[in-house]
């Protein structure tokens, strides 16, 4: 059964990368955001580590919306959604498959965002790369847990991007705050933030929303 979720992920990723639009759009939007925010400081002044981290996670948040709308619209054509629902697997595996696909796409987008933060916002020093990447992975898991749960919600709606943004962004605030604080710690000199506390908050958020998603996803991804 576990393999089935990976099969779903592989199917989604093949479809997304076959035309590339599903990943190019969030990458471009994120890069534009980073560039535009680089104009917010006068010439010669440095962007603070906290501001840089906030811009990084803002770009990532928009990527979450676009990525999950793409992933859930894959089954929009030809009623393929019904086929997925008829598959002999628990519905929760669809959530897991979509979450894993979303995580891969989000990481792919962040591969572009991080260098952009270095180039446009002058954050060329990173305090402990492995720990920073670990914290990004943890925050990403929280983002995809919520994104995969609620991404299915706006399908079939003409304004699904804006609808999903309105609902998902406020829910993500605790984990984004944690991401920004940990980002400020790693972009900065590695001081001034309660790293352990924020890590605990992210873990709690991830556990809570992963559990909630496993329970609640069947209600959202039913046949209506």
């Amino acid at each position: 059964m576990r393999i089935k979720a990976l099969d779903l992920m592989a199917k989604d990723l093949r479809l997304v990368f076959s035309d590339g639009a599903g990943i190019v759009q969030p990458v471009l939007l994120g890069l534009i955001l980073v560039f535009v925010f680089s104009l917010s400081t006068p010439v010669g002044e440095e962007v603070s580590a906290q501001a840089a981290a906030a811009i990084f996670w803002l770009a990532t948040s928009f990527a979450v919306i676009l990525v999950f709308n793409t992933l859930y619209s894959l089954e929009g054509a030809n009623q393929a959604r019904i086929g997925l629902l008829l598959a002999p697997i628990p519905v929760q595996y669809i959530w897991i498959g979509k979450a894993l696909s979303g995580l891969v796409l989000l990481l792919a987008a962040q591969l572009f965002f991080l260098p952009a933060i270095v180039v446009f916002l002058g954050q060329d020093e990173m305090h402990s790369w492995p720990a920073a990447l670990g914290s990004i992975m943890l925050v990403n898991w929280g983002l995809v847990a919520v994104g995969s749960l609620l991404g299915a919600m706006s399908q079939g709606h003409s304004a699904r991007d804006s609808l999903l943004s309105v609902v998902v962004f406020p829910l993500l605030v605790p984990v984004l705050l944690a991401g920004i604080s940990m980002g400020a710690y790693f972009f900065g000199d590695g001081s001034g933030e309660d790293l352990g506390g924020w890590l605990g908050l992210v873990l709690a958020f991830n556990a809570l929303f992963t559990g909630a998603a496993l329970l609640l996803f069947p209600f959202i991804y039913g046949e209506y």
Partner: protein
Amino acid sequence: MNVNNSITLSPAGALALAGGLSLALAQYFIWIYAPVEATMGLVQKIFYLHLPVAWWGLICFFIVFCASIGFLLRRSPGMDQLAVSAAEIGLLYSTLALATGSLWARVSWNTWWTWDPRLSTALIMWFIYAGYLVLRQSIENRRKMRMVAAVLGVVAFLNVPLVFLSARMWRSIHPAVFAAEEGGLEPEMLITVIVCVAALGLLTAGLLLFRFRQRNMQDRVRDLYIQ
């Protein structure tokens, strides 16, 4: 010809009337019984509205949470109507709490808004439940709308403890209202707060029942029209 001149009050009406009268009584406590705060003066009286609306707003959101779980378990339209009624009242109270808090902040902290985590939390909750109501308006399939709204009603409230937690971790300049050691309330102020909270509670219960009945009737009329 028999004419029935007796006036009957529905439970909602009785609660609303009791709430209105208690709020009138609360004015005595606010303006006469409770002392004027030494540093902030009369502006501190905002607190007697701010705290009850903030608390009852949160309780309304808790009702959304419980009713949403009830709907998911029993698929009863009544639970959905209770959830949306509570969300509307909770959103109204949150708006009042944010507005009165902002007035307080201007006098107390010399700013209309500061990124104090508790203020941010209130605003985040406001955004979430505003999104909840927007979502309900946006989905035409009523069965899907009710199901999705119930899921959102559950996950939205799950956010609250995390936001409170983040409030402690972030820098906070919010006053400790019921601090055990220092910075707490004078006994007269505490009694006034309790009276205001109770009065608004009665009004909230009345409003909630009214809105619930309205939504029930709205659904019945819509169903009649469809038939």
